[in-house]
């Protein structure tokens, strides 16, 4: 096993490099509800100074329960707090890798690589932001909300989940001054039609200059339709299986439409944040 090094980069290099391979100490790693966990890592200032909303880290999951995940696992930055020296992730238990993450306890070290990828941008004219997300998508949008608040933008966060119990980060979005709209399967409010109605209302009220979303195909298609209908822009954070995470291997491509050309772009490199209108639904 290769030794995990706390700071592979000599002092001077901190200024030169964009991403770092570091073994960070675990501050806490607690279940948020049945399916989600929040992992808090202790991170050096120079690393946190480079983080931006929408970027991700590539995590080297430990050996646990007799399983050794081999490839790294990509996780969005859920929060980065230079003052506290903390880097947060919010993850859902899926397979061997996330199960292994869940085994980490305070004081353990986790080898991370990042920050990686292209962040969200908030253009000057976008005063009213609409965040639409479901499930772990909320993790990706959380730091965007913080940034929006810093820039003094107005926000509506439409949070969708299977059940009210799985609505995470709602309080967090509220604290940041967002209007929060919750939609759940259990209450029968999360259907596409209802979502469309909710968004059209926001647009009618002048409360939607740009959309931000992640992951879901269904939501992407709806937002593209609405975006085209009203000429509204947006950004989407996409997921794809990754090996290297930095652009070397070309395993993480997705298809995009630019003009009349279909392009294959790497989610780890040209993304994970893309122009919402260019993404080709799958």
């Amino acid at each position, binding site marked *: 096993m290769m030794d995990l090094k706390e700071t592979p980069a000599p002092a001077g290099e901190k200024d030169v490099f964009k991403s770092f391979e570091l073994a960070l100490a675990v501050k806490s790693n607690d279940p948020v509800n049945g399916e989600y966990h929040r992992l808090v890592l202790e991170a050096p200032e120079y690393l946190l100074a480079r983080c931006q909303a929408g970027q991700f880290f590539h995590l*080297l999951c430990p050996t646990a329960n007799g399983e050794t995940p081999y490839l790294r696992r990509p996780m969005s930055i859920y929060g980065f707090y230079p003052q506290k020296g903390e880097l947060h992730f919010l993850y859902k238990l899926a397979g061997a890798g996330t199960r292994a993450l869940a085994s980490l306890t305070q004081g353990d070290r986790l080898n991370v690589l990042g920050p990686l990828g292209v962040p969200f941008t908030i253009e000057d004219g976008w005063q009213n932001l609409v965040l639409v997300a479901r499930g772990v998508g909320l993790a990706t949008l959380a730091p965007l909300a913080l940034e929006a608040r810093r820039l003094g933008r107005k926000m509506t966060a439409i949070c969708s989940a299977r059940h009210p119990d799985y609505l995470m980060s709602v309080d967090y979005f509220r604290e940041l001054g967002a209007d929060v709209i919750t939609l759940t399967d259990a209450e029968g409010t999360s259907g596409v039609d209802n979502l469309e109605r909710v968004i059209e209302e926001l647009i009618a009220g002048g409360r939607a200059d740009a959309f931000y979303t992640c992951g879901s195909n269904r939501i992407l298609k709806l937002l593209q339709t609405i975006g085209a209908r009203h000429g509204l822009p947006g950004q989407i954070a996409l997921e794809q299986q990754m090996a290297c995470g930095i652009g070397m291997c070309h395993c993480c491509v997705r298809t995009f439409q630019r003009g009349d050309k279909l392009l294959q772009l790497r989610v780890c490199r040209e993304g994970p944040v893309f122009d919402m209108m260019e993404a080709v639904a799958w």
Partner: protein
Amino acid sequence: MVDLSVAIGDLRLKNPIMPASGTFSEELAEVFDLERLGAHVTKTITRDWRDGNTLPRVCEVNGSMLNSIGIPSKGVGSFLEKVVPFYQRYATPLVVSISGNTEEEFATLCREVSVDGVDAIEVNISCPNIEEDGKAFAIRPSSTHKVMRALRAATDLPLWAKLTPNTGETSEVASAAEEGGADALVVANTILSMAIDIQTRKPKLGNLMGGLSGPSLKPIALRMAYQCARATKIPVIGCGGIATAEDVIEYLIAGASAVQVGTATFIHPTAMVTIIDELEAYLQAQGLSSVRDLIGTIVDDGQDEAVVFMEAAP
């Protein structure tokens, strides 16, 4: 001070550690100083634009991985315009990996990339030869010899032939490459493999099959590196499953003059740098003044390889 430099034919490398084709790119410069490496090796390109294979393109298997990336290529024009100049800012030698599905296409590309700033050409003859039955050139000695002669005629740059483990004739293919004009052998590419998701009953790769790389490949590629070092007089560059300095030392002892690190860089992007540092420390600790003192020092009591091969059959 220990001397880490090695020679691959006329090309002198400051250390024997370089990336494997397809597991390295300009982007890695954002993680460490690429000048630390013994050489830079680019992803295989083809003459014309190509898309690459169906997704998913990678999966995990038991502490190793399968890939069927294919060769998404922007073509030689874009390569010469953008990639070569990028690497020219480094003093480190640049090795360009190419492939083609016919001898002529292959040779033409070889000529086209023989430009200033390129120090050697790695010819990925593990790619299919569509003029025969679609098997990789390097599966058979005859097709290896033929394509290497065509490539040799196309360039004056050093030619490194990258061999495939998907053959029962490693030594013969190595000799054929040498006779065909190879200046060095890169041993080896990935071995054809498969994995199935038992829930969906679908192959885990969009392309059904793909190449195994990482630790599981090491004993196979190490055996091939040893066979090639014995079968030829040209330098062998070991490749397959290298993740630590110990792995490098094993390849050097087996007869490799340098090594390529592939999948390990995906797991630890700084793996190559760590390996260089650890290799230097090892030599120091062992009181060796040059890494070259390790090359080919295997204590094999002169056992004859052919006989051994026979007896090794279970």
